[in-house]
């Protein structure tokens, strides 16, 4: 989730800097400090979650909503004491 936030923020900053609505993947890679293959995989994921469009690289309204809500989601996760939903089997035993 943190990486989604980093990548979406990088796309937003690129768009803001370029004063347009399209970001260049190479610039996003530089800003997010990720290897290109890894960035490509995350971009695919973000597109499947409908937060971006890839050709050309643009952020959707859902992506903007995620950026706006990121701090709240992080606080919720912290407050509830959870991190990921892959609960270890020993924890699930007895549930």
């Amino acid at each position, binding site marked *: *989730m943190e*990486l989604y936030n980093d990548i979406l923020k990088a796309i937003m900053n690129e768009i803001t800097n370029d004063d347009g609505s399209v970001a260049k993947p190479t610039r996003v890679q530089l800003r997010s400090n990720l290897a290109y293959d890894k960035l490509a995989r995350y971009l695919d994921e973000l597109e499947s*979650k409908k937060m971006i469009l890839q050709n050309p690289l643009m952020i959707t309204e859902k992506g903007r909503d*995620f950026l706006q809500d990121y701090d709240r989601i992080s606080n919720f*996760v912290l*407050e509830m004491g*959870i991190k990921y*939903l892959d609960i270890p089997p020993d*924890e699930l035993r007895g*549930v």
Partner: protein
Amino acid sequence: MDTKDKNDLKNYRPMKFVDEMERNKHILLLYDDQKYADWIIGRYFHNGFAKGESCIFYAADRPEIIEKQLSAGGIDVSLFKQKNLLRIYEIAKSDDNNKHDMLHTLNQMREESKKSMKPPFRFVGGTITDIETKDGMKFSILLEKTGHQHFDEFNYSQICYYDISKIEPTRKEVWISSLLKNHHYVIYAAEPSKAVAFETMLLEKDDNSKDDNDVYEK
């Protein structure tokens, strides 16, 4: 509703999410103040009525209490009951937590509750009231898991609501993680500065992260 509440409601962050939710989703509503839960449920039903959908509330409490809550959420209860678009379905209390036949019982309850109403349907359920004990929470998770596994077989959406201040505290993180795992969306109906709604899959550890961990392990 006073002016401050009206303002808070107008700017309440999860409302946009509620307005844009896709159909046929299983939604977890967590709250610690009934007022905010009433707002969410009110908006969810209101959106349903606007689309001509039938809304059914599974009530473990007395129907009068639920009607009061719905009114607090801005719903004209008498009007929509009269139009046969709203039903408060009282759940019979039972000590028999028959886990083997859970799916059958769920289906039977659903069929019975929507009799003579027109599809599509929206449900709200606070069916498990005993969330203050380990046994109550275990049963709740089992019920949610069974419902979620078969959710896509039916054409409806449902909000399941829980007062998190009452959840059995010793395993709270595991209960909440399990509840999140068995719903598509979560709405945290808290005070306006903390309230949020999102897709639970955002909290799933993705394959890329697993690869990263593999690299570190090597």
